[in-house]
């Protein structure tokens, strides 16, 4: 991608992390370390929820930084650094998801059923029968329910939600990361938030929790 001088100047002046990346381009290990320290946790957070596995997310985050290092010489500041980084992360995550899909692995095999994101939203909704007694919302339980709801989104909706929620990226930036139009992002996010509302609203108002894994008829 060719980046005009004015664009490069704008991002260089406006984004300190772009300036760090330019130092990395000039082989500064200190700048690279600083970017790792600034972004590794953020990358793992997003990747964990995208692929649904913490260990894999850590491996993928390392793969992202390896690509950053290997591509350093061709880096041009054509976007915010975080947008560029999460574009790489998106590609790495998509590869991992495709690879896993090919192997037909069951997604997220952990002891905690709430960490599973394999179930489609319809199945989650179908399984959420029976109203639970009204009670104080338990924090851990709520986290499980939210995680389940996010896990039930499709891959594109989930990534858009995570970039919007955790990284607070604009629609334009998310569109760049995912290589689709900002208008498509608007629809994608609206759809995702409607889906989240369908699952979370009953829980929020009545304690109606989506059924645990194994009760969904799968």
């Amino acid at each position, binding site marked *: 991608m060719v980046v005009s001088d004015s664009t490069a100047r704008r991002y260089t002046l406006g984004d300190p992390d772009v300036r760090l990346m330019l130092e990395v381009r000039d082989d500064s290990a200190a700048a690279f*370390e600083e970017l790792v320290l600034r972004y590794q946790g953020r990358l793992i957070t997003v990747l964990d929820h995208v692929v649904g596995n913490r260990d894999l997310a850590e491996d993928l985050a*390392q793969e992202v930084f390896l690509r950053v290092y290997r591509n350093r010489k061709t880096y041009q500041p054509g976007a915010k650094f975080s947008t560029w980084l999460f574009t790489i992360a998106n590609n790495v995550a998509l590869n991992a998801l495709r690879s896993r899909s090919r192997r037909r692995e069951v997604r997220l095999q952990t002891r905690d059923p709430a960490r599973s994101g394999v179930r489609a939203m319809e199945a989650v909704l179908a399984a959420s029968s029976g109203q639970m007694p009204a009670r104080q919302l338990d924090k851990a339980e*709520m986290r499980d329910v939210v995680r389940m709801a996010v896990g039930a989104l499709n891959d594109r909706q989930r990534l858009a939600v995570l970039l919007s929620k955790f990284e607070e990226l604009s629609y334009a930036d998310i569109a760049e990361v995912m290589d689709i139009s900002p208008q498509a992002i608007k*629809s994608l996010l*609206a759809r995702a938030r409607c889906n989240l*509302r369908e699952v979370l609203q009953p829980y929020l108002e009545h304690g109606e929790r989506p059924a645990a894994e194994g009760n969904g008829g799968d």
Partner: protein
Amino acid sequence: MPDEPANAALTLEEQLVAYLDGELEPEESRRIEELLASDAEAQEIMQRLDRTWEMLDELERHEPGEETARSTMEMVAAAAEEEVAGLRSSAPARRRRRLALAAGGLLAASLAGFLVVSLLTLDPNRELLEDLPVLENLDAYLEVDDVEFLRELSRQQVFADFDDADAGDEES
């Protein structure tokens, strides 16, 4: 599950979500605010979207860990060394490859320096000072595999002029 709008209601929800995200133009925002002021149903839809969005704050966030960062730096340092080794084994006469080799060597040396500093927690200054002559010339050392050859260079005090000679060689 489709990503596209399925019905007219979604268009309103699209607008409400974009409004909540601050993604509407001022004129569009004003229209939504007028709608919300006069339409209780639209107001309820927006509040539900907003409340369930806030629930996502409960999701875990991973704090950056020093151990994980160190592991990443070690991995990249290993990749840098591989890069240098790969370049060294290819045609050395070409100038662009020599420049790449120099750059790769520099980064490998810098990363190695980072790891050395990271690991010297007991008395970092003393050990760092002891290693300084090595660190200063690490990129040069990486060029040469034979320790005995380096010793011979040292005995002949050739290293003192290495940088100047190398710079002159690059320009020629």
